[in-house]
């Protein structure tokens, strides 16, 4: 059993809390809070429908304001799906958290540049990839740097920049799924795809 003294202590403590609550907060009311109106609703927005996909028992707050203008033009970019691999173009690889071209990959890139120059009817897509270490957003940026570094090398070897498109997949498209050094090394790559102009 709790002692009387304990009760008294607890009571006074709880009472203190209640007094403080009572002073600082609106008194507890019987107001419904089930469906407050939105704070701002500048324009009549589409009617909110309970999200079937997001569970019928979940909340459906009031509709959001009308969409803001779009940011930036959608650039004319060829769909990555239109590109296909060719045996002649080999991957190059990168050290962990690096995006400079390794000396041992220069030969491969030179061969790729040479093929692209003699197959000038092709556009090329360079994919930049990372291993799963690090984190998604950073790796998306890192993959971009790898694709860009690879592109810059090809351009330095005489491939026209306007034939090259780059894309980063970050860590999202590994070719190897084991958690080993050799697997991670395979995933840190620039991959080449082509399509006819």
């Amino acid at each position, binding site marked *: 059993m709790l002692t009387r003294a304990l009760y008294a202590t*607890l009571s006074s403590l*709880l009472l203190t809390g209640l007094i403080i609550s009572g002073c600082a907060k609106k008194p507890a009311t019987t107001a419904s809070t089930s469906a407050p109106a939105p704070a701002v609703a500048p324009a009549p927005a589409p009617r909110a429908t309970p999200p079937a996909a997001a569970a019928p028992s*979940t909340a459906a707050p009031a509709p959001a304001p009308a969409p803001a*203008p779009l940011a930036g033009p*959608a650039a004319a970019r060829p769909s990555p799906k239109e590109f296909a691999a060719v045996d002649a173009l080999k991957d190059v690889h990168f050290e962990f958290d690096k995006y400079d071209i390794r000396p041992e990959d220069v030969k491969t890139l030179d061969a790729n540049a040479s093929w692209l120059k003699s197959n000038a009817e092709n556009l090329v897509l360079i994919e930049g990839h990372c291993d*799963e270490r690090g984190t*998604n*957003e950073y790796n*998306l940026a890192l993959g971009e740097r790898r694709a860009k570094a690879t592109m810059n090398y090809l351009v330095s070897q005489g491939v026209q920049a306007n034939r090259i498109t780059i894309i980063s997949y970050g860590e999202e498209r590994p070719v190897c799924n084991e958690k080993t050094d050799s697997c991670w090394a395979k995933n840190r790559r620039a991959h080449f795809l082509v399509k006819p102009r």
Partner: protein
Amino acid sequence: MVRRLAAAALLFALAAVTSLALWAPPPAARAQAVDVYINVTGGDKSKKINIAVPDFTLIAGTDQAVPKLLASVIGNDLTLSGFFSVVAATGSIPANNPAALAQTWTAFAAAGAHAGVHGLLAIRGDRLEAEMRLYDLTTPEHRLIASRKFESPAPQSRRLAHKISDEIVLQFTGEPGVADTKLAYVVGPPGSKEIVVADYDGAGAGNVTRNASINLSPSWSPDARSIAFTSFMNGYPDLFRLFPFERQRPVQTLASFVGINSSPGWSPDGRYLALTLSKDGNPEIYVLTLATGVLQRLTRHAGIDTEPTWSPSGQQIAFVSDRAGQPRIYVMDKDGSNVRQLTSGGFHTQPRWSPKGDPIVYTQRSGTHDLWAISPGGSSPRQLTSGGGDNQSATWAPDGRHLAFQSNRTGRWQLFFMTVEGQTTTQVTQGGNEATSPSWSPRLP
């Protein structure tokens, strides 16, 4: 503010008193005259308020499942809040029977409960009407602390319970709980990731994208009505936002420039979105004004700059840069000026600025990944997670006290909760699909 501090003092004092009570454990009691069975839950109660939540008393309607569900969800919410230890109970208190109520509370008090929740529920057609009465069981007369009525559509019984839980937390701490919130997160293996929204406790998960591409980095807007995210749905990594509560409303394109369009970070007022674009050569941070579409570039550096996160004042932005060789956390003013390096000597990504202003939580990679916290002023970093595989991708609850994050400690990525004090972690998501990149919504409107 005074009130909040005082409430904290109350909790601290209660903790001391509770540990006294543990020296002489009360016998497990069983109420005789009423249909309520209780016993004391296990676990560490030394810093918690012991609270009893019997099944709701059904005063209209016939569905016996709802009164039990409400008590069960509230009990779980109060446990997850970290403030309470829930005294197990089965059965409900009879309606309009003061003697039975008094006897129930006396029995719970004897079992160590400091507070009791008497819930009343009327089911009227497709509406639920509930009343929550909160009692102080440490007073001989079982003082009524607060009573409040709630209404909800019948299918939203879980949300009704969450609202009641948040009110109970408010009564004890001066700030509402965070049970009436959502998590958005990414589900799926590499190459096939969709965004899912669930209640904060993992219940009711459902897809909000179904585009069979790669969807990343969901981020709730401050009004809780939209989610910004990166998607490859059009082939390239572009930035979009979707409206999870408006089924017919199409996804809006926010940025689709050449290169990457990623890492959405909302300003606290929801008027701006910080983001990463590589359209000008390499990944840099920009701020998009949503009402006008105007872009302002903040960083100008040859390295990677990404993952912007705003201070709650809206005056500063923390971000990741590899300008020192490895990724580290930096802070700049909102116009890009006054850049300073916050962390050093490691591989640091994923900064998340507390909605209370302090600390900034981030991910450190040293073999595996773990969460760390650092003051925006640059105090010594404090490690929040350790052991148990990788722990990363933190997101703050609106109370600035709870964090959700992803961990592979079970062998697959799943979401977990912890408090920023680093207390017990709780697994949120289960099952076969991997769950990553959580974003905790603001309190729902």
